[in-house]
């Protein structure tokens, strides 16, 4: 007896969830799309929160920014939990390799003592700034509207915690645990850190989550990361014999490049939506940028001394070019 094998194609009834199909049409959706679109609770709200009865728990009105569709805020990196965790795990492995390379070759001992001291004085208190940035992104994730922006905000909060931990590990590698206590004291008491600490603490009581997004993720991170990790650690400290610091700060550099893509996409989406949004974004940038620059100057001086002003100007000019591309008045 002869058997003929025949393939039968069974068309799936639906390619994806109805609410995703409503956005992209009936075709296979990516996991990012399925794990993002319309996950935010809307409708049938419970009682209003006792601690702030002006709003529902999830309320579009918690920011002055207005969007017809909150899912215009998309993550160009397409992170959902799975992809995010896989990318970070890989970066963690790379960072571990760098740390063990520095440790096993004793590269820390090769750094001139004065360079090491200056780098640690700059780097270590920044873990408190990173913690502030983490809290601020937690706030955005908690009070923002639409999974398209709150989901990556929570990832950003975790990333900033990770950055704080990498800084801590640099401290333990190049110095000891006492250096962390000293850095905390610096952050709390030393004159050069007070403007930045004040800025970080003021942001923790800021109520408009999109303003907070602009102040923290666009303005502060947009200036701090190129200045500290680019100009100072990768250029200045490396040139003076401290390239081991460059290796242990590798994650921060890579992360900042990636975060810029996310931040810029959010700003572009908000600005494109309406002239009112564009005006608000420009207003908030104008409000926070001078403060961020002023508070980063004494920090930059720790390493760059009298060249800090010129370096900061250069970073700020580059930042203004970025704002120009986003359609935001510098």
């Amino acid at each position, binding site marked *: 007896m002869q058997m003929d094998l025949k*393939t039968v*194609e*069974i068309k799936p009834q639906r390619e994806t969830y109805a609410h995703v199909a409503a956005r992209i049409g009936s075709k296979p959706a*990516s996991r*990012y799309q399925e794990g993002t679109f319309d996950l935010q609770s809307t409708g049938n709200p419970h009682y209003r929160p006792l601690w702030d009865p002006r709003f529902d728990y999830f309320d579009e009105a918690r920011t002055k920014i207005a969007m017809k569709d909150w899912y215009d805020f998309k*993550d160009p*990196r*397409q992170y959902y939990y799975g992809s995010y965790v896989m*990318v970070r795990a890989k970066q963690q492995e790379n960072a571990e390799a760098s740390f063990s390379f520095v440790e096993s070759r004793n590269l820390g001992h090769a750094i001139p003592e004065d360079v090491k001291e200056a780098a640690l004085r700059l780097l270590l208190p920044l873990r408190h700034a990173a913690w502030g940035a983490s809290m601020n992104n937690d706030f955005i994730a908690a009070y923002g509207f639409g999974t398209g922006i709150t989901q990556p905000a929570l990832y950003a909060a975790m990333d900033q915690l990770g950055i704080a931990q990498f800084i801590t590990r640099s401290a333990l590698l190049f110095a000891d645990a006492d250096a962390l206590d000293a850095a905390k004291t610096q952050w709390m008491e030393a004159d050069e850190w007070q403007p930045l600490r004040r800025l970080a603490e003021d942001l923790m009581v800021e109520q408009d989550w999109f303003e907070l997004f602009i102040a923290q993720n666009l303005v502060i991170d947009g200036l701090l990361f190129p200045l500290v990790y680019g100009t100072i650690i990768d250029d200045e400290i490396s040139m003076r014999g401290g390239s081991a610091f460059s290796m242990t700060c590798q994650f921060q550099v890579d992360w900042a490049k990636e975060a810029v893509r996310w931040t810029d996409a959010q700003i572009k989406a908000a600005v494109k939506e309406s002239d009112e949004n564009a005006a608000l974004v420009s207003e908030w940038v104008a409000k926070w940028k001078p403060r961020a620059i002023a508070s980063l100057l004494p920090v930059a001086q720790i390493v760059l001394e009298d060249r800090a002003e010129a370096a900061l100007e250069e970073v700020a000019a580059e930042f203004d070019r970025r704002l120009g591309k986003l359609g935001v008045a510098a």
Partner: protein
Amino acid sequence: MSEPQSKVFLCLQANDETRGIVEAIRTDNPDAEFDYQPGMVRITNKGTMKVVRETVEEEVGREFDLQELHINIISLSGHVDEDDDVLTLTWNS
């Protein structure tokens, strides 16, 4: 009588990894035809077809090495010209 132009084709597994690649091919080759079969996508185009790294990167949201394509290629036809930025399939006409 004009010679009918030969078609190149690229056959990819249909999975989460190739979804962005297929979309990128759709963008870069507007005339290409897409035949979804069980477990795979067969893409045909007259004369030439290209896969551009930059377009794929936009679709998948991360850096993409064109060599990653080979993991999911089932079959292809045409002369292959591949560099870091673009993979082109052509028939000499």
